[in-house]
């Protein structure tokens, strides 16, 4: 099996999911090529153990994200029986576009993969687990933090390809800067708030706990729909994001079926809610019946004490 991994970048550096993609490819055997769009992180990709070649693809088109222009530039360089990408928004778009160009099928957001190929993923935002079989050549995007990272210690050769490509998408105006916060779909720990937070300004208390833990901040659909200040990008659940962090902390979230679908596969769930009958307690490993006003300051203080030791 020969695999091409499309690397993922994050603020001009190689995203750690790239090593997870290589780890998944390694378990299937065969040579692994990593393609770095815009050349981002190429030297770091070469240090991932198991990588045979790195292709650093540079060119004007990588200054702005234009899915079609990137895909046209990358597709001729993508070879092999299996194409892997991250199931981030850009990863999904690129692999959809590249696989369509090549006329091969794509399966998205896979969480486990067995040889030639049985792929597992969740559908209906986590309500159902689906297992599909798919034969090479094919394309598969993998969910962040679902596969073991390949170790460091590689020394692959890096070749640079410079491609000129027409772009159709131009940024005219930046309306708001990207949030400095980690996205919920990538975080190991998420702390989410619901309508029980009372008002959007109170999410600052969640931010404070998140800062201590290095966590992402999420929200329930009820919170997003009620308060314009809480962006949809924070929404966990059906019509939002499906997440599988190691720890999910739900604060003032009652636990509607759509929300539970999107977070129930988290490894551990801590729920804080003043209503002892809230459905969220049905999926929580640890439940604290308390108002957030009482619980969050203690939680923050305890975490600071624990993590500073």
């Amino acid at each position, binding site marked *: 099996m020969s695999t091409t991994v499309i690397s993922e970048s994050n603020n001009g550096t190689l995203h750690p999911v790239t090593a997870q993609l290589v780890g998944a490819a390694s378990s299937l055997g065969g040579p692994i090529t990593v393609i770095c769009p815009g050349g981002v992180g190429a030297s770091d990709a070469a240090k991932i153990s198991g990588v045979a070649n790195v292709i650093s693809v540079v060119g004007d088109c990588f200054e702005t994200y234009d899915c079609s222009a990137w895909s046209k530039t990358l597709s001729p360089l993508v070879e092999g029986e299996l194409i892997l990408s991250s199931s981030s928004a850009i990863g999904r778009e690129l692999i959809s576009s590249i696989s369509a160009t090549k006329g091969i099928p794509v399966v998205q957001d896979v969480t486990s993969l067995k040889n030639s190929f049985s792929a597992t993923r969740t559908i209906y935002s986590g309500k159902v687990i689906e297992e*599909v079989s798919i034969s090479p050549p094919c394309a598969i995007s993998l969910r962040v933090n679902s596969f073991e990272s390949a170790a460091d210690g590689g020394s692959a050769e890096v070749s640079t390809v410079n491609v000129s490509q027409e772009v159709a998408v*131009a940024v005219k105006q930046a309306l708001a800067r990207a949030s400095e916060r980690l996205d919920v779909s990538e975080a190991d720990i998420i702390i989410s708030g619901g309508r029980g937070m009372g008002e959007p300004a109170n999410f600052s208390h969640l931010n404070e706990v998140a800062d201590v833990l290095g966590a992402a901040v999420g929200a329930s659909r009820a919170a997003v729909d009620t308060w314009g200040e809480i962006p949809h990008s924070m929404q966990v659940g*059906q019509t939002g994001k499906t997440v599988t962090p190691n720890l999910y902390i739900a604060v003032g979230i009652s636990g509607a*079926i759509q929300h539970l679908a999107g977070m129930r596969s988290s490894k551990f769930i801590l729920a804080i809610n003043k209503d002892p009958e809230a459905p969220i307690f049905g999926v929580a490993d640890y439940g*604290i019946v308390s108002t957030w006003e009482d619980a969050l300051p203690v939680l923050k203080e305890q*975490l600071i004490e624990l993590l500073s030791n």
Partner: protein
Amino acid sequence: MGVAVLLKQVPDTTAKISISGGRVDEGSITKWSISPYDEYALENAIQLKEAGFGDVVAITCGPARAAKCLTEAAAVGADRLIHILTDSYLDSIQVQSLLSAAVKETGFEVVMCGKQAADTNSGSTGPGLASTLGFSCVGGVTGVSIDGGLAYATRLGPSGLEKVEVGGPCVFTFDKGDSELRRPNVRGIMMAKKKPIDSLLPNDLGIGDSDSMVVIKDHSSPPEKQPGQKFVGSESVPEVVEKLRGEANVI
């Protein structure tokens, strides 16, 4: 001039999904709806129509039941309805070739759909269709306006929320936007019931039979969570934090 809107009918997000014999039991699903992100695409297409940008053609691909989502689209203003009748599970390439044939038939160069469907949550169709058609693709947009032959889209890009200009044919995939989704009025609903649907078989679009390259092996429910430990009052927080480290080993 006009917009082709792609709609997928999915179980309503409030529907309970049950499994029978290793497959999702579609017969037990009581309510089907237009996939939520597709509704934002439809809303934007209707707004463009109101601004003078030609007709809205709504296209769906799926079994007989999916015709309902076209009628719902007609009730809020879609002008023409195309239903590609398919009964079996299709892989991404099959879906894209059917939809691209239907879009070509409209002759339109602006295509709108949701960024992903609420059933499979995949997101392959928009960008894949764009490749198949040779169109550009701008994903995750919350609004599109058209002025002087150029499209302007608001999207959450890698560096933040931005307004981008697009020249030439394009597929826009929609995220949830600020637009209030319109509700059909009684007249709209009555008119929509009489609106004819162009029901096409893949062969009518020149697409021959093929086998899906992706085969569903099994559907199962996620494992039930074991009942957890419950504590009362904020005074229990230190004990729980202790367990998050000692038992769960997650902090």
